[in-house]
């Protein structure tokens, strides 16, 4: 791999940019791999990357039915934070956030991590108590957050109307080291680094069946032929239930549509991320100047990557009160992704009833922030059969009642 650097740009400028090479090659499936990862979203690619980087396992294929990063990884609103309530969540989300800080250097690929600060507005008395509790929990977990006053909210985000009338801003949970990153770049950066380690990233290759022998996985059937493997990592987000069914087990997951929209680009007016969970809306400004807006999920199962329009309406209606300037904005695009939601709103990183199959799913509405940490932990789980970061996220926790309840922190949106 040719390293990207200021020097490389200068060098290429002198030879009409003829020296750039492909970031990753077009691989043909081999007959067998040590590990097959299904799903070339951020989580699948990060899993492959850390398998190679941390455990030296590089005979790996990442199989993707569409195009790399074309699932939720390329459809999300890129909010990164780690201010969750429960200890297992704090551990994996904070690991992830801290990996983001050095990810561009690590991958030699600019993922444009921007720790601009994330604020979650408290607009009811309930939310004040809830977020104060989270701030206390975070300080015990070593995650830096604070509960701030409405005046401080206004200072940090002057375009906000904090006086209501319907939902005045009563305070906010503020994580100064949260922020955003460029979603495509995260997928592309990991893909480039994986290819550099000799891994095969095979696009337009749908896994259509899982082959097992005596309760152990031996390979997969795909739209491009059968491929054998010793271990299989299923990292397919919204399609987790569909793939699990092919391997003969069920997951505690529902797949629903989550939508987002962006406005026309405007001059810089907001340099923090604001989330308002009571009114179902959140917003940040992209580097291009578009206001990036997201809201709540639909309430019914759906695999079509299209959501119900009234949720968009609800989100925008809520934001217009808190951000009056939104009322004059034209919206450019709107889209949907299919998110995988669990009963306790926490992910599943787990062994499965089939020997050699590991599953990473259930990130639902908020897994972009978790990509590096989840890949790190998943790689350890696949390589060693266990990981301190994934222990509590087992798929059996629902049977034992050991929920990691994040419905307050994650119930609406990320």
């Amino acid at each position, binding site marked *: 791999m040719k390293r990207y650097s200021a020097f490389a740009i200068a060098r290429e400028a002198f030879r009409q940019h003829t020296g750039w090479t492909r970031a990753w090659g077009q691989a043909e499936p081999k007959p067998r791999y040590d590990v097959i990862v299904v799903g070339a979203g951020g989580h699948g690619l990060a899993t492959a990357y850390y398998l190679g980087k941390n455990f030296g396992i590089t005979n790996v294929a990442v199989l993707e039915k569409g195009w790399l990063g074309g699932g939720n990884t390329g459809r999300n609103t890129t909010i990164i934070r780690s201010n969750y309530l429960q200890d297992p969540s704090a551990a994996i989300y904070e690991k992830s956030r801290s990996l983001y800080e050095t990810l561009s250097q690590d991958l030699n690929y600019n993922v444009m991590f921007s720790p601009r600060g994330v604020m979650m507005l408290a607009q009811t008395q309930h939310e004040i108590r809830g977020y104060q509790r989270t701030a206390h929990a975070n300080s015990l977990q070593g995650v830096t957050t604070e509960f701030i006053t409405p005046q401080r909210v206004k200072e940090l985000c002057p375009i906000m109307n904090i006086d209501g009338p319907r939902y005045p801003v009563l305070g906010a949970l503020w994580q100064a080291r949260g922020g955003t990153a460029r979603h495509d770049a995260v997928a592309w950066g990991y893909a480039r680094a994986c290819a550099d380690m000799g891994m095969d990233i095979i696009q337009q290759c749908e896994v259509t069946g899982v082959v097992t022998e005596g309760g152990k996985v031996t390979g997969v059937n795909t739209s491009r032929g059968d491929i054998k493997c010793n271990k299989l990592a299923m990292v397919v987000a919204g399609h987790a239930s569909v793939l699990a069914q092919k391997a003969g087990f069920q997951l505690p997951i529902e797949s629903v549509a989550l939508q987002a929209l962006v406005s026309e680009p405007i001059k810089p007016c907001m340099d923090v991320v604001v989330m308002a969970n009571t009114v179902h809306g959140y917003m940040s400004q992209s580097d291009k100047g578009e206001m990036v807006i997201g809201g709540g999920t639909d309430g*019914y*199962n759906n695999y*079509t990557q299209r959501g119900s329009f009234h949720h968009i309406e609800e989100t925008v209606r809520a934001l217009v009160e808190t951000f009056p300037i939104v009322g004059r904005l034209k919206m450019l695009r709107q889209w949907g992704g299919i998110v995988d939601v669990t009963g306790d709103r926490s992910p599943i990183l787990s062994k499965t009833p089939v020997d050699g199959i590991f599953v990473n799913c259930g990130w639902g509405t908020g897994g972009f922030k978790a990509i590096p940490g989840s890949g790190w932990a998943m790689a350890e789980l696949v390589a060693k059969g266990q990981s301190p970061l994934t222990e509590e996220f087992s798929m059996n926790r629902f049977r034992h009642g050991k929920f990691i309840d994040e419905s307050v922190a994650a119930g609406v949106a990320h």
Partner: protein
Amino acid sequence: MLILHCPHCDRMVDETDLHPGGEAHLKRHGPEADAEAFENYLFMRENPKGVHFERWRHVYGCGKWFLAARNTATLEVYGTYPAQTHQPPQTIRDTITERQPGWAWGDFR
């Protein structure tokens, strides 16, 4: 916008007048049941890409629950029926078979 027929009011109802209630035909269990039964009832879900059965409530109308047969991959609606039943009526199953031969959902075919 999803539009479903409320079998109680006998009228077509917009999604905004309805409240989704999740998977239909869940098997409830009593206090003496084991952890696995409760896990299945409370958390495990069919979540199919295709034919699905679910609960809806006509919340801004008659307030009653009903069940719907839908396709989660195409958003096609096969029909709705009152909630006082343990299985989808034969007419609905026939409609689904016509549109989606060989379908299966839980124990239903």
